[in-house]
């Protein structure tokens, strides 16, 4: 709409350029480090891009046997015996994240439908779920450990799934609620006149219209579950390992944190989040503001 004088244009370009560099740099460093051999990890001046890139870090993460063979042959290559398998970590994370997502979206959709169409619980009911989100999880974790030990849920898949479901329900409910509110009630009303039962009306008429929104919510909740750290740290004791925990396993007594290996693990474990994040880019704003702000 407005013309930009030279000065403004220059400032704009520098500002945006700076933002892009700063946004990208730590990620670049992570990925770059994942290909560095051990002697380049803490070299000064720092190595921006490895001169002798190696896949050894990735081998240690994903193919420990091959890593050991490689280390035996190649002088100077890092050799490390990892305590748990990264494949198991990815598997555990997948099981928990997917399971918790399914529960969260399922329960959340039903609850959101109940709230929007029937005003269940009055006007303050949805806000009670918001309050859940405001509690620092650490405050709940301690008694949860106790509770889980009573219920025999300690260090179990179901335990974490339950915990994740409960803490992502506020997002599910509020997000799906905002999607349902966009569909006029009259559509279901028409279906009811045709003899459908209320839930049928919802599933056949409204749900297809909000399918995209529900999918976006599901991906959003999946991202939250996959990235979660605190519950995984405190509610498990070794049997269940998520990708966020696995990274911490790459620490050796002699060398401290194994930067390259952690970087490799981090790069791969972040990929699903980046992928899904871009898929639901349009809905990110709605999700992160609990449905308050929409495009």
């Amino acid at each position, binding site marked *: 709409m407005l013309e930009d004088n030279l000065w403004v244009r220059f400032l704009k370009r520098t*500002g945006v350029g700076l933002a892009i560099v700063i946004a990208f740099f730590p990620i670049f*460093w992570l990925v770059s480090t994942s290909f560095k051999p051990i002697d380049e990890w803490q070299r000064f001046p720092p190595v921006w891009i490895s001169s002798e890139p190696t896949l050894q870090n990735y081998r240690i993460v994903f193919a420990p046997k091959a890593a050991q063979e490689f280390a035996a042959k190649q002088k100077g290559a890092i050799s490390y015996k990892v305590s748990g398998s990264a494949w198991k970590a990815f598997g555990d994370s997948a099981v928990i994240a997917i399971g918790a997502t399914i529960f969260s979206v399922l329960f959340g959709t039903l609850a959101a439908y109940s709230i929007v169409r029937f005003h269940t619980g009055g006007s303050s009911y949805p*806000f009670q779920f918001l309050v859940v989100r405001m509690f620092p999880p*650490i405050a709940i974790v301690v008694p949860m450990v106790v509770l889980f030990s009573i219920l025999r849920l300690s260090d179990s898949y179901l335990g974490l799934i339950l915990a994740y479901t409960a803490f992502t329900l506020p997002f599910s409910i509020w997000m799906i609620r905002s999607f349902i509110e966009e569909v006029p009630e009259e559509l279901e*009303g028409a279906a009811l006149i045709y003899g459908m039962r209320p839930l049928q009306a919802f599933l056949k008429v409204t749900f297809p219209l909000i399918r995209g929104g529900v999918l976006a919510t599901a991906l959003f909740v999946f991202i939250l579950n996959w990235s979660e750290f605190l519950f995984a740290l405190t509610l498990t004791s070794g049997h269940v390992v998520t990708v966020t925990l696995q990274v911490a396993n790459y620490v050796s007594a002699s060398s401290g944190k194994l930067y390259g290996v952690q970087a490799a693990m981090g790069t791969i474990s972040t990929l699903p989040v980046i992928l899904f994040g871009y898929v639901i880019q349009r809905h990110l704003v709605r999700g992160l503001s609990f449905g308050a702000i929409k495009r």
Partner: protein
Amino acid sequence: MAEPVRSPPSPRLEMRMGHRRLIPFNVAIALPAQLTVLTVVLVPTAIVVWLSFTDWQPTQGIPWYQAEPVWFWNYYDLFHDARFVAAVLRTLLIVAVCVVVEFLLAMSLALLFLDDWPWRKIAISIIILPMMVVPVDAANAFFMLFNDRGPINYLISIIVGRQFEFAWLADPNWALLPIMLAEIWQWTPLMFLLVLTGLMNLPENQIRAAYVLGASRTRIVLRIMLPLLTPVIIIALLVRSVETFKIFDPVYILTRGGPGAATETISMFMYNGAFVYFRIGYIAAAALMILVVVAAICVNLSRPLKRHHR
């Protein structure tokens, strides 16, 4: 947390239901969500209340329900616990600094994206990249960046002109900085998206009218856009403040709260207290205090929010 109020069945239901059900339909379908939250949140809260009045430590060898009550001594101790008070103040400081910086950066950046220009969409995609990195991995990346022989120190060396090898994460005065920078780096893109969405939803006609009246870009931003943006700003600040208050991942990965307790936040304090020192009862009291304060703030905030939502 109250049980869901059983609202009377809507007229539609009355018509449809030939027989009386045990539980109204609308309550029944909200039950799974409600029960999950009840179990995972309410029951532990009840346990916290009990534990906060005891000094239970798992190392004592007795089960938790047989712990000996010390009544309000935990709370008394907490008030006089310099480490706890420091953790609270430190957390508030982190929230204030991070949220304000995130907002200012996000706002300035969002203003640059109002008009369309080539590569705009791609620029936005890159700028929101930090939001989509697993926080633990981002924290690890920052750990590497702030290594005493890492790229940050190298860049500072170039600027300053001499060798700069500062152990950020080991310095009690400065260790908080990498933590805050990691948090700001990761979440400014979120603020940016929220603010940008708000800006793009502003009524274009009012802005056009202001231009015709001769207003400069600055005047339009300050006098027209910002006031219209106030609801979005409030939501963004609120959401980020609440989330930042709970900060844990970067603190754990970068410093564990150290050196000593120099970077201990509330979450870290409670983690250390419970899982390192095993003073569960004491930490339960701290947890309950935080819960009560947070709940009180929420109740007071939900009223204006409800008004806005209606």
